[in-house]
Structure formats: structure tokens, C-alpha cells
């Protein structure tokens, strides 16, 4: 997906107006001032399905030897934030459950550490319900970032009014709208743990969110934090289906299926525009990064996963 053809490469550099400068400058931090029109670079960093894996996997682990670790993610995020002016750090759900940290501290450790890392927002995964609705509401005092979900109706529950249906962020002159979609809970979460929560159809809700964020609020970038899962071999709801069945979503950052994507996937939406979908495995084994270059006046958006090895790639 998202093949690197000569024509779109040329367009990319033409728009940036500095193709030659780009070449051979791995790690070069793009300066928007150099472009003819002002391009703002927005760096999205994201995780999913952290599952309480605060410590790295040991070297003896058969699948993920020596990978992961909150302290390392913290260091990498801080490094990128020193390099980039406009970043957002986002999580796509299932922060809870997977190591003794959760059994003993009920989410406090994960949420406090993620707050310290500077997360800007997260969405709710099915395992956030593992200790019931109180297991979420009672731990929220440990977090300084919002939970965003748009398709669970918490009316009449302890979470009523505590979960944001969407949130708007401003970076430079760019307006970024973020909404969140969670997976069907029935048959997945024990009914006593999600009692009173109403699940609404993700596509229906996404359309309403896009109307609000893109049409009414005039957001330049619309991001969906999803815990629906990447793909489905049946016709179940998933990020691919969501992208194809809607319009107006620019990026879907995903979770739930623990999918480790080599490159972000690009899917055409109902308007034949590209939607970028990314997901980075689980347990903090990777940090996702998508850089956007946005020209607010012309409505132009360019996405790249990163620039660090751009030189290497161009030789291919």
C-alpha cells in the first residue's frame, strides 16, 4: 500500500519546494519557513494495546526479546519533542491488563506514567472495562490527559460526562479534531463490567463526528483513535472498513488486533481520498509516527511516516 512512485514523489518534493535539500539529509528537521507557502509540520506519535507492559520483555521472551518499556518510550518521545515543534502523543486503548502492575495497582501505575510521558489523549479499549466502569472512573484521577470515545453512550453510568466524545487541539495555526471509536462490547466484555453502556455503530458515529469536526468546526485534520481492530476476514467492523465506508477522516490510529504494520496503510474513502491507517503491535514494542505537512490555505496535506531514513529510501 502507499507505493512510492516517481510521480507522487515528484509532487511531494515540488510542494515542499525543496526537493534537493531533502535528499541525503537523513534526520533533517524540515523548516516550514523555507517553503514558499507556509507548511506546518504536525507529528503524530502513537501507541496501542500497552496492556500494562511497563517493563520491557526479557531477552528470553520467545516473541519479543528485549522489546518495549515505558521508560524507553518516554525517552524517545522526549527526544522527538525536542526536535519537533508540533507533536501529539496518542494512545488507542487497552492500557489496562497484562502484567501484575494492573492486578495490584488497578491502572494507577500505567495512567500516572503515561501522564508523565505527556500523552495528549487516549481512547478506551475493551480491557479498560476489566474492573467494570468503576475500574475506569476511580482511576481517572491518576491521569492528566482525556479519554476520548464517541460511540459508547455512558448516560446514567458513573462515567457519564467523564469521557470526551471528541477534542480539538490547536498546533500553530492548525486545528486538529480527534474522536474515538470503541469495539462492540457484547460477547467480549463480561456484561456486568459494562452494564448500562450503549454501543453505537462506528460508521454512523464517525459520520456525525466528521460533520461536526470538519464541516462545523473546520478542523484541518481529523483523527480517529480506534479500538476496532485493523482488518476482518468476515464483514466485521474494522479500521479498513471504517476508512472505506466514510469520508472526511484523515487518519485512523488503531488498536485491538495488535497488528504491527510495517508501513502505514492507505485506503481510499467514499470520496476517493486517502485515509492513513496505522497500528504498532502491542505492549509498547513500537512507537508509531506519522508526520503531516499542512498548508492551511490550500488545504494540502502531505503525510509521511518519518524522515529519518529518507535518503536510504530514495536510493532504492
Amino acid at each position, binding site marked *: 500500500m*502507499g*507505493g*512510492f512512485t516517481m510521480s*507522487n*514523489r515528484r*509532487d*511531494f518534493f515540488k*510542494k515542499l519546494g525543496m526537493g534537493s535539500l531533502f535528499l541525503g539529509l537523513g534526520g533533517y528537521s524540515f523548516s516550514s519557513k523555507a517553503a514558499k507557502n507556509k507548511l506546518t509540520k504536525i507529528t503524530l506519535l502513537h501507541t496501542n494495546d500497552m*496492556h500494562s507492559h*511497563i*517493563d520491557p520483555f*526479557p531477552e*528470553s*521472551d*520467545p516473541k519479543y526479546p528485549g*522489546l518495549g*518499556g515505558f*521508560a*524507553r518510550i*518516554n*525517552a*524517545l518521545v522526549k*527526544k522527538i519533542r525536542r526536535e519537533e515543534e508540533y507533536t501529539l502523543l496518542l494512545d488507542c486503548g487497552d492500557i489496562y491488563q*497484562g*502484567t*501484575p*502492575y*494492573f492486578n*495490584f*495497582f488497578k491502572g494507577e*501505575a500505567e495512567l500516572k506514567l503515561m501522564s*508523565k510521558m505527556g500523552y495528549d489523549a487516549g481512547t478506551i479499549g475493551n480491557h479498560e472495562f476489566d474492573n467494570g466502569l468503576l475500574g475506569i472512573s476511580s482511576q481517572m484521577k491518576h491521569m492528566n490527559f482525556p479519554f476520548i470515545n464517541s460511540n459508547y453512550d455512558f448516560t446514567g453510568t458513573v462515567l457519564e460526562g467523564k469521557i470526551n466524545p471528541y477534542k480539538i487541539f490547536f498546533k500553530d495555526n492548525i486545528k486538529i479534531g480527534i474522536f474515538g471509536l470503541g469495539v462492540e462490547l457484547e*460477547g*467480549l466484555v*463480561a*456484561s456486568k463490567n459494562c452494564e448500562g453502556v450503549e454501543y453505537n455503530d462506528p460508521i454512523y458515529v464517525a459520520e456525525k463526528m466528521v460533520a461536526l469536526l470538519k464541516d462545523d468546526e473546520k478542523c484541518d485534520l481529523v483523527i480517529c483513535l480506534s479500538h476496532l481492530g485493523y482488518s476482518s476476514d468476515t464483514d466485521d467492523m474494522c479500521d479498513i472498513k471504517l476508512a472505506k465506508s466514510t469520508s472526511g477522516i484523515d487518519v485512523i490510529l488503531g488498536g485491538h488486533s495488535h497488528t504491527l*504494520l*510495517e*508501513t*502505514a496503510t*492507505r485506503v481510499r474513502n467514499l470520496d*476517493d481520498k*486517502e485515509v*492513513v491507517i*496505522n497500528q504498532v503491535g502491542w505492549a*509498547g514494542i*513500537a*512507537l*508509531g*509516527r506519522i508526520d503531516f505537512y499542512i498548508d492551511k490555505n490550500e488545504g*494540502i*496535506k*502531505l*503525510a509521511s*511516516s518519518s*524522515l*529519518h*531514513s*529518507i535518503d*536510504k529510501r530514495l536510493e532504492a
Partner: protein
Amino acid sequence: MLKHLSYLLWATCLIFVVACAPQSQHEAGVFDSNFSIDSCLDQQALKDTAFINMISLYKTGIDSQMNQIVSVSSEALMSGKPESLLSNYIADAMLEIGNQYCLENHLAHGVDLSIINNGGLRTSLPKGAITTGKLFELLPFENKLVIIGMKGADLKNVLRYLAAKKGEGVSGIKMGIKDGKAVDVKIGGEKLDINKVYHIISIDYLVNGGDGMNSFEKRENFRHMHMKLREAIIAHAKTLYQSGIGIKSELDGRIYYEQ
């Protein structure tokens, strides 16, 4: 339709390799669009002492308990379908735990088969020492063990579920999966008897319809064992290890895909 070419100029996915060290042996190539989180970040990570201290605050509270060695595994065990070393190990242990329980409680029956969903096995077991903490990672949920009695005729619904799931962790049963259906089913070496009542050890989550399992509804009897799966597995592994038997498992074709 491309109305405005510039409008959808997501030019392309310019992918980078990795922020720091070369991608060594860790599934090379997989991480090339996103950052791998590995030891090359340690030097930087340790500089944020406030962050490290916050982790330690939680870690020191549980480490002494979590670092206890429960047993030793002769090889790495991973989960997978239709059968796997890890799911076979847990399902076999559950069958033994169930039979032990029936014996201790002077029940007129034992357990005929065990069922555990692969989705409930949340990490792999490495070769070597297995700590309490590792078994918490493998079985983090607070799921409790239950025994249910079902007629063979009703058990067929459960077998259909196992087939639809392309296999789950089972013990005491041998079955093929063909076109999404269970075939050549043998329980305890015998053909399925639709009139006989079979006893199954599983977890409350599944029996209550978790993971899409809704085939346990028609049953003859139901018993809570009042113990968590994790605690039962830890106790079972500990007892065996004390008598010199470590964690081991094998693939024996208990669930297979028939062509």
C-alpha cells in the same frame, strides 16, 4: 475521481528505518516504518530519573512476590491454532486440576475435557525459569474455574464453536476440523455419546458467553470451583516442580485441520 490533485496529495509513505541502532535480530524489517522500542534507548531512558523512580515505586512493592520461581520450562511455549505447546500445557493442567478437585470433593465424576480460549493466554513462556510474574502475564485475568455437565447432544454446540474458532486450547478430546465443522470426535478415546453427560472444566468468562461462546447454555449442572485459573495453574506447577517435574508440553494432534 480526483477533483483537485493537490487536495489529496498524501504524497507517499516515506518510511524510515529505526531511530537508533540497526535492526538486529528482532524481526528485522517489521519495524521499518515505526520506531522499535529496544535497548538502544536505555541510556537516554535512564537519564529521566523522576520517571525511573516512579516505576520503581510500583515495582519494588511487588517484585519480591513476582520474582519467585514457580517452575522451569524445558522449552519456549507459545500459543497458536489449531493446537500449540502453550494451549496444550494449560489445557492439560486444567484437566488434572479438575480431576484432582473432583477427587478431593468426593464427586461421583471426574472431568472429561477442558477448554481454554487462546485469547486468554496473553504472553509466551520462555525456556527456563518461570516466575509468578510471568504467570500473571500469561493469565492476567481474574477468571475463575468452573465445571459444567452437558449431554453429548448439547456438547456438539461447544464442538461447533471450537471448530468455528479454528481450534482453542483443549485436553481430553481429539477432533478434526473440516469446513468449519468438528469431525471424528473422540472424548477419552471414545466416540461422542449423545446421551452421556460429560463434565467440562473451563473458565467463568467463557461459560458466561465471553469470546463469542454461547454454547454452554444448555447444561445439566454447573459448579464453581472457587479458584482463579491463574492461582490454580501456579499451585499446580509449583507442586509438580517440587516433585521434580518441570513445565513441559507436546503437540499430539488433539485438534487438527482435516483436508
